[in-house]
């Protein structure tokens, strides 16, 4: 009789997991009860309990990693996500490669962060640290509950464990997998720390600004890693997915973006609370919402409520548990805010519309509107499915209709807010501050509008019928932001030089170090402008499909002219040189060698490829990108025939796309400036180290997390070196229609160039209809490269052939007829990229515009009250400041405080 498979690692790991669960629950109870009953011993015990919990989870995580490294395929999770051919770095990344491990990874990262946060802040916040520990541990209890009762990563096979695993999804076998998920998880998890402090402040009644100072660093870390994770995801999609873009408003992408909006809003209004003692309740709500959205994003990807290439799959039980958890914390958090509302009154008041406070308030509203809009539209398919039985989906085009104007408003505020003073900016000052940045914007728009016709491209905004030259406005606003930030630096530098008498360089360093939150924030604003330059380029990108029958090598060998192997796109010449196949243990890679030239200048030899995996997973593309600051040339091998050497190419010309990556670099620099520890500033300025400085030093250590990933990335990139070259036969370039449909989504069929639109009406329709192959995650017929999409495009062209598109009203009637035909065929509007229902655009319109109106009314009443309060204060008998001794002491304090 065969022995039952056993795994000591699984046994010990499961025991460690259960012990962690018990410890988490006990620590949560100890911390909360200890703080509530003001029992310092219980609170102190809970702090050590938290440290012990992290150690237990570290044991659990280490055991799982050990199982991966030692190929313990008796554990189902290890068998499902790894195999013997994977390198060490990918085995370690397989830890977070699927749902079970990703949950454990979440618990581990939260354990690490909470250990640091508590160790740094336990003394300073000892009167509420028990509540902080309790809150964090309740979150941990939830995740460990999911692990133990739903997704135990140590579950073993009962019989016949495999001798080898299934390996990681090929799409995940690249260096981005090493850094993208961890950075996003770090961003998500970092939002828990400010949340815990906020709940503790509310529960304990310590509602002064002390908690705000302690969470500032964590909020910045959350902001940075969310940004990092989002950009990495975009870069990954750009390099690996082969659709020429970097952002598709995928639900899981949106899951990371929504908390980014609310955390950004919090970072701004936290400054208002520190400066003016206002927005206290609002800040607490934002922190709670940010945490809620991080959990909601996790819920979206792990419950199956949304369809996404990133999603882990469908699990109704997990969905229910997440819903209960989210509701619990939302009710507790907002309930505490309402309970403490009388003590959260503003100390200050809005006194003018032309003030930095008002600009921050509008900025907050727009950010919140973005978050709610993206959330609503992302969840719309699930909502409509449950309410109406029909799953309506929204394509990227609808997101862009709304996010474009909101984004431009944010861009404007990024430049305008730094120009405004606190409390109020008088008319004369407004003109002086806005003059040069506005001039920069106007001049930029005039020059670009006259000299670069592409910037005048009309883009739909809010509605398809409303088209504006969005790129031109974008560049103008970018110039406005640049002008504003440069002006701020110059004037700040001037003031500093006058104050200290130092040279410009020393003054600049001093200015940035002393006022690092302000000037680091300005660099981040600059980064946003640079990002928008990259976004603007998307409006005039180009995509073409070409098929080349024979490579130049074969044409030359048969003494035929090589011109037949060339094609031209927007001034670039592509010469298809040869087709080659190489193989390794994992896959067979087919490379096409393409020479890129511009005029007579040879730019690069490019190697777009297709990979077919031995384990039967879907083929993938390896795109070839020629990067320039002005534009990228992006080549995808969409089909090939190894017998005839025919190759199909899709070429994208992506203007300004590299500015997106450059923008992130600026964002990172700005964030690092904000995170410079006080200890470093004290060291440079020769001051004694403050307790806050010591605590903030830890922030620098946390950023070492990113540096620690670098060796893994380097190792993973080394693993991507070209393997042994062996020629083997490959799949044919094209298939019959029936076979293509039967294969579903198979974008190596070489059909991407077939049945391309021959009129603007055809192109518009193909961008409105989605591919229903079920494998491409609902790309439009225009973009999808599979054969199924090609046959659907043919259907569109055949239907349009029956209409006269030249007569007035012809295109409109044709569009309606074709759309109706597809809706009838597929039994609903699921085939449309954007639903036609009025409610779909009406709801965000009402919410956002209506909200702005309400905000305006509320701000007006705030300003009116604020002015009355200021007038009353001015009229009231004042406190005498004739006490020169105290005035002298104050002057001494001001002199010593080089802020």
């Amino acid at each position: 009789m065969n022995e039952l498979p056993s795994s000591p690692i699984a046994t010990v790991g499961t025991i460690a997991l259960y012990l962690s669960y018990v410890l988490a629950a006990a620590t949560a109870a100890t911390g909360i009860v200890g703080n509530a009953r003001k029992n310092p011993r219980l609170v102190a015990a809970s702090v050590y309990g938290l440290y012990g919990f992290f150690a237990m989870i570290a044991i659990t995580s280490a055991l799982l990693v050990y199982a991966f490294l030692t190929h313990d395929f008796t554990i189902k999770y290890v068998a499902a996500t790894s195999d013997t051919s994977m390198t060490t770095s990918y085995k370690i990344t397989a830890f977070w490669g699927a749902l079970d491990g990703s949950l454990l990874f979440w618990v581990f990262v939260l354990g690490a962060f909470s250990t640091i946060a508590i160790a740094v802040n336990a003394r300073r916040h000892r009167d509420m640290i028990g509540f902080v520990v309790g809150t964090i541990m309740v979150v941990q209890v939830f995740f460990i509950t999911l692990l133990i009762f739903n997704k135990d990563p140590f579950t073993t096979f009962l019989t016949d464990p495999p001798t080898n695993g299934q390996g990681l999804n090929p799409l995940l076998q690249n260096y981005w997998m090493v850094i993208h998920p961890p950075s996003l998880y770090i961003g998500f998890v970092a939002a828990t720390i400010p949340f815990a402090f906020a709940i503790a402040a509310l529960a304990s009644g310590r509602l002064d600004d002390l908690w705000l100072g302690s969470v500032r660093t964590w909020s910045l870390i959350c902001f940075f890693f969310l940004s990092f994770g989002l950009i990495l995801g975009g870069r990954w999609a750009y390099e690996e997915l082969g659709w020429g873009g970097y952002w598709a408003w995928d639900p899981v992408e949106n899951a990371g973006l929504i908390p980014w909006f609310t955390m950004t809003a919090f970072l701004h209004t936290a400054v208002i609370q520190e400066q003016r003692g206002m927005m206290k309740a609002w800040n607490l709500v934002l922190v709670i919402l940010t945490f809620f959205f991080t959990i909601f994003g996790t819920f979206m990807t792990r419950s199956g409520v949304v369809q996404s290439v990133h999603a882990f799959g469908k699990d109704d039980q997990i969905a229910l548990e997440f819903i209960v958890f989210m509701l619990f914390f939302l009710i507790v958090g907002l309930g505490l805010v309402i309970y403490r509302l009388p003590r959260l009154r503003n100390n200050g008041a809005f006194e003018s519309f032309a003030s930095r406070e008002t600009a921050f308030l509008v900025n907050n509203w727009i950010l919140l509107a973005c978050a709610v809009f993206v959330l609503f539209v992302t969840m719309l398919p699930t909502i409509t499915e449950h309410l109406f039985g029909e799953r309506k989906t929204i394509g990227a085009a609808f997101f862009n209709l709304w996010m474009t104007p909101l984004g431009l408003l944010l861009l404007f505020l990024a430049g305008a807010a730094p120009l405004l003073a606190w409390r109020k900016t008088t008319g004369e000052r407004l003109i002086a501050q806005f003059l040069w940045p506005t001039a920069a914007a106007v001049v930029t728009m005039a020059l670009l509008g006259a000299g670069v016709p592409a910037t005048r491209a009309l883009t739909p905004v809010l509605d398809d019928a409303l088209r504006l030259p969005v790129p031109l406005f974008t560049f103008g606003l970018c110039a406005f932001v640049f002008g504003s930030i440069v002006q701020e630096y110059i004037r700040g530098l001037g003031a500093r030089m006058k104050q200290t008498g130092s040279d410009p360089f020393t003054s600049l360093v001093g200015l940035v170090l002393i006022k690092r939150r302000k000037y680091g924030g300005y660099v981040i604003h600059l980064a946003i402008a640079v990002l928008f330059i990259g976004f603007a380029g998307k409006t005039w990108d180009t995509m073409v499909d070409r098929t080349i029958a024979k490579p130049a090598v074969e044409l030359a060998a048969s003494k035929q002219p090589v011109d037949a192997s060339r094609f031209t796109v927007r001034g670039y010449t592509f010469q298809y040189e040869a087709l080659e196949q190489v193989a390794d243990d994992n896959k067979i890679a087919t490379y096409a060698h393409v020479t890129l030239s511009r005029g007579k200048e040879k730019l690069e030899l490019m190697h777009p490829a297709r990979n077919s995996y031995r384990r039967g997973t879907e083929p993938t593309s390896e795109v070839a990108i020629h990067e320039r600051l002005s534009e990228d040339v992006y080549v995808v091998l969409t089909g090939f025939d190894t017998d005839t050497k025919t190759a199909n190419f899709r070429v994208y010309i992506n203007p300004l796309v590299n500015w997106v990556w450059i923008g992130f670099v600026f964002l990172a620099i700005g964030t690092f400036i904000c995170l410079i520890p006080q200890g470093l500033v004290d060291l440079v300025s020769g001051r004694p180290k403050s307790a806050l400085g010591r605590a903030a030093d830890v922030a620098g250590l946390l950023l070492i997390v990113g540096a620690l990933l670098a060796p893994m990335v380097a190792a993973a990139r080394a693993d991507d070196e070209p393997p042994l070259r062996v020629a083997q036969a490959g799949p044919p370039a094209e298939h019959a229609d029936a076979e293509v449909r039967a294969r579903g989504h198979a974008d190596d069929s070489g059909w991407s160039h077939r049945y391309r639109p021959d009129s603007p009406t055809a192109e518009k329709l193909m961008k409105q209809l989605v591919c229903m192959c079920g494998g491409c995650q609902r790309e439009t017929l225009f973009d999808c490269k599979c054969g199924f999409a090609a046959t659907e495009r043919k259907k569109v062209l055949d239907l349009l052939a029956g209409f006269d598109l030249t007569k007035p009203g012809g295109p409109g009637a044709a569009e309606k007829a074709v759309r109706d035909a597809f809706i009838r065929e597929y039994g609903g509007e699921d085939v449309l990229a954007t639903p036609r229902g009025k409610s779909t655009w009406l709801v965000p319109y009402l919410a956002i515009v209506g909200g702005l109106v309400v905000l305006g009314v509320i701000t007006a009443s705030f300003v009116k009250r604020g002015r009355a309060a200021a007038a009353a204060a001015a009229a009231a008998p004042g406190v005498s400041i004739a006490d020169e001794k105290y005035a002298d002491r104050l002057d001494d304090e001001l002199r010593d405080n080089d802020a």
Partner: protein
Amino acid sequence: MREPARPEPPLPPRPLPPARAVGGASSLIAPLIAAALLPPGWMFIAHAHRWHLTPSVIVLCLAWTAVVGAGYALVRAGNAFLDEVPDDWFTAGGNQAELEREKKSLVRAIKEIEFDRDTGKLSPADAAALLVAYRARAIEVIKALDLGAIGMTPRERILAEIQARAQLERQAGKAKAKAAKATKGAKATKDNGKPSKDNGKPAPEAPAATPAATADAAPAAEPAAVEPPSVDTPAPTAEAPAPAAATPAAVIEEARASDAASSSEEVAS
């Protein structure tokens, strides 16, 4: 009829004990034991793998470190029930800390206003108006910090404030009289062609009343209502000599002396 019990005179204030580390000042035995356990465990793991330091061995060593760490933390958690903890654990910082934070916040705000003025966001007039209010509040906070540092009771603080204000008014009155005298002397000199003793210096201006701290200042740390002076407190007279230096300590001593005097008078009566 029994007389109501007289309140005991307040005890001298006790300074706040320094904050102790979480878990108290534990001995070094536990961390030493934990540190001592680590190397044998690592060596055992390495030995079991024949000293081939592969990534899996390193991971196991990290796991052993976590095991020791977990044990240490749990021992410390248990010890926390036995360790001494400060009595003021749940009054961390107290009022003084809040005042310090408010002071720092006001100093930051003042610096920000000055910076905005220097960079052109605020006109000098607007900045001056804002600075008056913020400076007034900051001075109030510094005063409150001084008074709090001496460990005064709220009643002592109120009495001290009243005494200080009365002192200020006396000084203001004297300064006004001096200024008037100087102006008269300068005028007489001008008429007679003789230089005045003050050499034509302008008379020091009487301290001007300035606008109160605006609504955005944090609520005052002291009680809002000022208790009217007790009937037993001797009222200051115009002829009463002013103390040489109006320091808080001197004012407090005077307040305590008057308190003690009034108490003994009540006892006598």
